[in-house]
């Protein structure tokens, strides 16, 4: 019988998490692109034979939430009975994976003797997959996904342990930096190797039947924890709507709307009132929408206290009609969908603010992801300067927001010294925007700005950001975050305000200034502790005007 005690379950649970962590270290250690090894834009997870996620390493939420569906899609193309030990399936289809082509998924079956006992999956954001602009995330001029780069449906990358050379050749012929893409795919392969070996040996130690029983218990217990927490939220329908500035120069704002329906221990996210899909590179394919709904659910329930797994996804249901902005139909493009990652939880938090404000934060500063490319005068080679900067986290009940931090994912700053060594640019300034933390009894976190000077003769920037016209919300009387902007040559006589998603030609000496939008405050600013206001003023987080007019600080 598969009777299994609580202790063994705890031990197996720890081991499953540890296997995912080992896979994560392997990817980071052996990756070739900065985005993967410094930016951490990759994910790994361990699945059972039914395709249920048993554990993951805490990495990129967009990939993690999409993984259960990605693996299901890969198994549709390669039914499990056809899989052999040493097979690796890869895929980057945006509708099957996590919503844009740069995200590649690799999956391997794990065998114990001749039986499949589970799967290991690893994914990573590739620096380029072809398409009209370097980085494959351009917004301007893109209307359908065929413009965005190469797309692999599920195909074999390794067949029974032997590499399939055609795949490598196709990649080499289609992407701008093949050595990095192929290198990163190999890093994913290394992780599958490490994880597969460890998972197989875990099954061997406990026996398939006991381990399966333990896995079932782990998922059920985790599910129960989420349900218990959700049950504490009063039943009801809570709606919120917000606006995306636009989906490129000359386009209209997009309505983003959610109704959160709480029914006992179930939570339903209904996006039906959102606008239809757009003919641009900004849409949120269903798996991406799902991923951040899962993130939001975890953030208001079990947070980081319990490792994420399939059980915690069960109480969540999505309602999104076809061809909705949050469930676009082919051939909608989605290269720029990463802008939306923080917006999905923010919508959900906006709705829940009406009933459980203590569990959520005010709106956060919007991150920016401009990509500059051109020819490096030092070596005559093409360079791709993949840059990003983050806003601050919105304030919450009882505490200020954290400054310069994505509210939803980990995006380690690439040091300026590394950027200048790698690309013909000079960073003139990189710092906090004073007054970007929305005022409140608890202040929002501060957002970043950056000024970049071009040292190449000619270059081009694909700007990517939002909230240049619609700011993030404050709560309970806290003020909204100020809007962001980006300006070409801000200190010259003829500064040009750039569109948040525009493409601009650049010449040597041009300076680009990016300012992320600010985050929202929580509670009435007049209620903020005087010492906190004085501290903010002394440390340069707020201006003296803001201290006087918004916070009511009389001159000290």
């Amino acid at each position, binding site marked *: 019988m598969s009777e299994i005690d609580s202790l063994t379950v705890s031990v197996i649970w720890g081991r499953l998490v540890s296997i995912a962590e080992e896979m994560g270290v392997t990817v980071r250690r052996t990756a*070739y692109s900065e985005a993967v090894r410094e930016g951490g834009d990759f994910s790994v997870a361990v699945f059972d034979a039914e395709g249920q996620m048993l554990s993951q390493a805490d990495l990129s939420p967009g990939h993690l939430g999409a993984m259960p569906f990605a693996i299901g899609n890969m198994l549709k193309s390669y039914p499990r009975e056809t899989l052999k030990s040493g097979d690796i399936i890869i895929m980057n289809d945006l509708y099957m994976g996590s919503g844009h082509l740069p995200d590649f998924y690799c999956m391997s079956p794990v065998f114990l003797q001749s039986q499949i006992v589970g799967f290991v999956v690893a994914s990573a954001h590739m620096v380029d997959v072809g398409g009209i602009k370097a980085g494959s995330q351009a917004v301007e001029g893109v209307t359908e996904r065929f413009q965005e780069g190469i797309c692999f449906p599920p195909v074999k990358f390794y067949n029974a342990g032997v590499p399939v050379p055609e795949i490598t050749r196709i990649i080499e012929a289609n992407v701008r930096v093949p050595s990095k893409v192929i290198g990163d795919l190999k890093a994913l392969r290394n992780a599958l190797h490490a994880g597969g070996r460890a998972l197989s040996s875990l099954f061997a130690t406990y026996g398939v039947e006991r381990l399966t029983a333990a896995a079932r218990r782990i998922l059920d217990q985790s599910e129960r924890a989420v349900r218990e927490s959700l049950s504490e939220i009063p039943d009801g329908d809570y709606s919120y709507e917000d606006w995306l500035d636009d989906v490129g120069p000359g386009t209209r704002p997009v309505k983003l709307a959610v109704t959160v329906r709480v029914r006992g221990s179930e939570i339903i996210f209904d996006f039906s009132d959102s606008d239809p899909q757009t003919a641009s590179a900004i849409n949120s394919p269903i798996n991406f929408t799902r991923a951040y709904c899962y993130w939001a659910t*975890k953030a208001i329930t079990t947070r980081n206290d319990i490792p994420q797994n399939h059980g915690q996804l069960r109480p969540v249901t999505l309602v999104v009609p076809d061809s909705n902005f949050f469930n676009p139909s082919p051939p909608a493009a989605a290269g720029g969908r990463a802008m939306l990652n923080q917006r999905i939880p923010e919508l959900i938090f906006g709705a829940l603010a009406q009933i459980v404000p203590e569990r959520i934060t005010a709106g956060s500063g919007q991150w920016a992801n401009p990509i500059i490319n051109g020819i490096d005068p030092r070596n005559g080679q093409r360079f791709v300067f993949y840059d990003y900067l983050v806003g601050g986290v919105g304030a919450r009940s009882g505490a200020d927001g954290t400054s310069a931090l994505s509210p939803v994912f980990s995006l380690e700053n690439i040091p300026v010294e590394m950027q200048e060594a790698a690309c013909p640019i000079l960073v003139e300034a990189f710092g906090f925007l004073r007054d970007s933390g929305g005022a409140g009894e608890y202040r929002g976190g501060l957002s970043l700005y950056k000024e970049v000077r071009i040292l190449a003769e000619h270059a081009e920037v694909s700007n990517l950001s939002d909230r240049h016209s619609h700011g993030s919300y404050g709560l309970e009387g806290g003020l909204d975050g100020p809007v962001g902007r980006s300006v070409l040559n801000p200190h010259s006589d003829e500064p040009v305000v750039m569109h948040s998603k525009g493409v601009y030609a650049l010449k040597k000496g041009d300076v680009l200034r990016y300012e992320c939008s600010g985050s929202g405050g929580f509670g009435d600013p007049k209620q903020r502790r005087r010492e906190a206001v004085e501290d903010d003023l002394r440390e340069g987080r707020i201006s003296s005007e803001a201290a006087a007019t918004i916070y009511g600080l009389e001159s000290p």
Partner: protein
Amino acid sequence: MTGTTATGSRFAQRIAIDIGGTFTDLALIDGEGVVVTHKRLTTPRNPVEGFVSGVSELLELAGISPDLVHEIRHATTLGSNVVIERLGAPVAFLTTKGFGDVLQIQKAVRYSIYDTRMRKPEPLVPRSRVWEVNERVMASGEVLRPLDAKEARRIVSEIRASGARAVAVGFLHSYANPLHEEQMKELFAQEAPEIYVTLSSEVSQLAKEYARFNTAVTNAYLTPIFRDYLSRLGAALQERSIEAPLWIMQSSGGLTSSERAAALPVRSVESGPTAGVTMAARRSSMSGFENVISFDMGGTTAKASIVTNGRPTISRSFEIDRLEMRDGSGLPLDTLAVDLIEIGSGGGSIAQLLAGALQVGPRSAASEPGPVCYARGGTEPTVTDAALVLGYLDPASFAGGAIRLDRDGAVKALARLGEPLGLDALQTAWGVHQLVCLNMERATRLISIDKGLDPRDYAMICFGGAGPVHAARLARGLGVKNMIVPAGAGVGSALGLLSSVEKTELARTRKILLDGGCVEKVARQIFEELRRQAAAMMGCEPDDPRLSAHHFVGLRYSGQGYELEVELPSVWDEGLGAKLRDAFARLYSNVYGYAEDLPLEATTWRIALESVGQDIEERLSVERSEGGRALKGRRTAYFGETGETQINVYDRHAMSGDDRAIGPCVIEERDTTTVLLPGDIGRIDERGAIIVEIGKAAQ
């Protein structure tokens, strides 16, 4: 007799003193190599007094007069405590115009991905004490804008007026060209000579501004405190007629003079744990094991480290003051340090239920209130409570009998914890014990993968009060076959200090393709320069016969970002490139499963230069209870493999070379207990270490 001076009295060749959070460990070696040890409580409010009293007590114990001490070696947690508790001196930071927020922005790592409450560590310098000056150096080292001397002068006077005792100067790309930083140092020397100045280019040669700047700021933050401490220490020792030179342990595992330590205190923040690893490396080598996992488990944390070819592995950076031991949650320091992974799993780690599963740590009951069984007000069951209930510890003789353990209290607390799961106290204790071992197994695996090695190829050496209690279970989890419990495991760090050598570690980044040929020429050129610098820092000529060097190079496939370090063989000829490639390929495929057919790149070159001098053969001994019986009794203990069972209890001090302890059993000594699992065989080797063959009898 050799152990006496010319006049016939006994002298102390070396004294070692390790001041830790709870205990201060001391050891002394006389001219004949006889070692005397001593342990006392730390006096956190007055470390100088604790130091001097401890040394006096030790000398009295050994019957040696204070004027017959040749040298003193010291490891201290002062540096890390000052940072963790933010007790440093008021400092200022000066940086390139446009970059004043770097220390506040930090890395933007979301180390808890789902936690909306996540905070960043508090920087050591508030933004209001940061100044920006107009200057700019490019990545190539070329000066784009010269230092604005007028503005710089004004800033110096402002910093002076601010009351700062120390200042850190961190300019962009100063690793490539330190000119402007050096100009600032001169300005401070002229206009504000009372302010201690740290340049970022003095503490680190690495790119990545935030980590380098933070390292400089940390050094500035610690400098006034270290100087005060060392000068008061010198005075207090002199008062007691001890004129011996003082050596300080650095994070990289070598000793340095107290003058150098006072100038670069940031290099000594991991002083204490490093001394333990040094001991582990030496003791394992003496027992015939060159490749070991060092496992040190105390009251609040456990530390794992890797020793390869008898040498601890070194990392180029680490984080201090991490939150819940999570990566990215602490302040980064770019200093060479023995590579340690520290996790919140100690004897005091608290067990609790989360989502219907048991979880152990990282919360700790520490020493106040301590585990339930200390009967000092602790109510939540801990790892030590579990070990007691399982029968692994003797309530009467814990920590040399210093604390009498309350078994009933531990049973009640564990029963309460296990009740919702339908577990009794014993079952719960078994769960807690397994889980804490699993936490440590996880950490050890991660550090292994990081270093590109397979733990199954390694032995394990364990120490610290809780180490030998848990090590055999951990060893099984990792697939380790041999375990070593060194003599004097309870004062491991002090023993490590006794046998440490003066050492300087220097690293330089220079990228070359391994297949480009001439590797041996580049190596010779780089290492000559590094040797010259390192020797100068130790006050000797590069060709001084007392110096011995080890050379390492970090390798990676061209295009990758992380390296694996390989030691250079002793001969450098045309075959060097091929040898390095082979060594790298073995390491890489061993852990990652595949070796690539890609060009290899050499990046970081590191030298470890040691002053070998007179190596003293120590004769530590475990006081032997002459004529005592090795088997001192039997008691009931629980093992998952056997259930409750009667086991033998051995007295380590009475065991001789012929005795065999067959698990399940325990071997007790004054400061710790070694637990052997069913099938393990333990014996004492000629060095007094317990050598355990894991699962040997079961085969």
